[in-house]
């Protein structure tokens, strides 16, 4: 299966390891990965701040990049959410609709078009799972506690298949980490307070590793943990799966 890997702007710059791990993992699973996708950003940062006009350019470049492909995979839930839900209205013509149709978040892609491969691997650690809100309630890639759904979903399944891995139960399994893009800058105190509370939930349950399919949540939690010297290793789901199945 020919797959384009789309690397969102902040992943490219701040968490390239998540993109590299995605690439390696997909190739290990037999995908022929194309790296010709060169649009830096889907427009989400501007779009979420209400600056719709400013988002159009990036969204259009993005949709144009996606045009030649049948499947585009992104290691980010919130960007995938933006592409799927906002590109059709941001981009004129049918390029936006096409992009929305072919773009998948990594775990979603593994569980969907790739038919959920039997990943065999070992990761003997206590792991806390953080599903970004846009993946969780936007893409419905995890059960929402408000809807009385158990914390299931593709990421859950993928982690559950690994030997030795213990998923720690959390007091508030689907509480927001407080990043929220421009929110982290516009409401810094609140954003950090929320992040700290998430970290406390992980550490009180003796998690050693924090895993997320959203590099943005990871980066946010990481800078707060590092300031407060919280001993938690943060990993993108691709990094974890790549390491476990090595």
């Amino acid at each position: 299966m020919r797959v384009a890997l789309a690397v969102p702007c902040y992943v490219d710059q701040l968490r390239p390891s998540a993109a590299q791990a995605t690439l390696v993992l997909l190739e290990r699973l037999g995908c022929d990965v194309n790296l010709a996708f060169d649009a830096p950003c889907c427009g989400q940062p501007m779009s979420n701040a209400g600056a719709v006009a400013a988002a159009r350019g990036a969204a259009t470049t993005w949709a144009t990049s996606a045009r030649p492909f049948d499947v585009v995979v992104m290691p980010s839930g919130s960007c995938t959410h933006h592409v799927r839900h906002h590109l059709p209205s941001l981009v004129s013509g049918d390029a936006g609709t096409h992009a929305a149709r072919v773009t998948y978040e990594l775990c979603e892609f593994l569980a969907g078009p790739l038919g959920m491969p039997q990943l065999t691997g070992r990761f003997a650690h206590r792991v806390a799972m953080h599903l970004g809100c846009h993946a969780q309630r936007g893409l419905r890639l995890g059960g929402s506690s408000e809807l009385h759904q158990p914390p299931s979903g593709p990421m859950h399944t993928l982690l559950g298949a690994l030997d030795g891995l213990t998923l720690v139960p959390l007091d508030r399994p689907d509480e927001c980490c407080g990043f929220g893009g421009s929110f982290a800058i516009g409401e810094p105190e609140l954003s950090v307070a929320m992040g700290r509370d998430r970290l406390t939930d992980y550490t009180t349950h003796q998690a050693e590793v924090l895993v997320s399919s959203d590099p943005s949540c990871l980066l946010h939690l990481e800078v707060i943990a590092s300031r407060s010297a919280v001993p938690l290793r943060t990993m993108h789901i691709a990094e974890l799966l790549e390491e476990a199945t090595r």
Partner: protein
Amino acid sequence: MHRQGVGHPEAAAAFLRDDERAAWHDDALWFVRQRRDRATDLPEWEALREAGSALKAHAMSRLAELLVEFERRATASGVCVHWARDAAEHNAVVRGILRDAKVKRVAKSKSMLTEECGLNSFLEADGIEVVDTDLGERIVQLAHQPPSHIVLPAIHWKKEEIGALFHREMGTPAGESSPDALAAAARVHLRDALLNADAAITGANALVAETGGVVVCTNEGNADLGMHSAPVHIVCVGIEKIIATLDDLGVLLRILARSATGQPITAYTTHVSAPRPGAAMHVVLVDNGRTARLADADMRSALHCIRCGACLNTCPIYRRSGGYSYGHVIPGPIGAILAPAVDLGAHRSLPFASTLCGSCGDVCPVKIDIPGQLLTWRERSATAGALPGGYATIFRQLGRLLSRPVSFARAGWVARSALRTLRTLRFIPGTRVARRWNPWTRPGRDLPLAPRESFREWARRAGRIP
């Protein structure tokens, strides 16, 4: 308390300065959210939400017709129905009724609408004493504060603080903070106000067009005590509270209490459709901006709100910033989409007081797409030139940068180098002070760790892309 000109970020930061209190507030509301989770864990819950949403949409689509039907039936049963275009008209109508009946003391039971219209201070200026009779409302009234939550108006008060307030205002023993003892003292204090009032004012949870009846839900029964003893009963209600039928009411009552407090039903659900013999009953139907919202197709469903407060309890922002940080009668996620409709300029920070996590949308029993409307308000702010601070310019430039792969790659390299330098500098003594002035690091986070190489630089070096 929220001051004019102070936006949500500043008010939230002030609330968070007392982190122990902020944590306690967060826990108190999370406790209510968990009770809601248990009470709504029914096989038919999603069907009920769907029905709740549909019955409100139906009522809003026939608003004028249903209100007239309500008026006709209520009038036929001897209720006097008044119409008020705005807060000023509402207050004037109420004062007129009270003056005609020579009322000196009013016992009021929870009504966010009278808060919206500023009725208390309006009547007090006229020499009329208004006593809020629900415990939480009474606490904030004694403290000269507005409610900080729409269902739990005094949720921000700790029991020790209430003890001190009651000691000062009601003469309870100093240091008394047992909830039972305080409630007992309040009961005595309120009984006097309730039994000796010349008029009772209540809100309403629903107006049923089919019956011409008014439905009031409370847990303390004070609304009932007031309306059953005073010679005059005035119901102050927003026109969006109308529903078509008693069947609709059945759905509404099932979703309301469960979402609000996690109870299957509120302790007292009272239908009033006619005045008591010898007494007078008035219903004041208030618009105050509601029909304007009805005309706004993108925001219309905000009128479906049944004021259960579930979105407040679930909201990680509301829980950690308190009701006053919103600077609006209705706080929380629903307030953040209602307030901009009243005055976008004054409430410009509210649509941004959210991470768009979506919890409010999933918890709302009438399925209002709150996150979607927050986003739409952000867009409108941008169009109206009301984006906070320098956002407009920053995002215009960012948008340009992020649409061009080459300039993005160049700027990314510069930014990463800068970040790496800054992060290293952090460890030089003396720069810790500087950290406090940097809005990124000030609240307690480091600068991001920037890698030497971006993904695309690596891919090029590895020969994966030309």
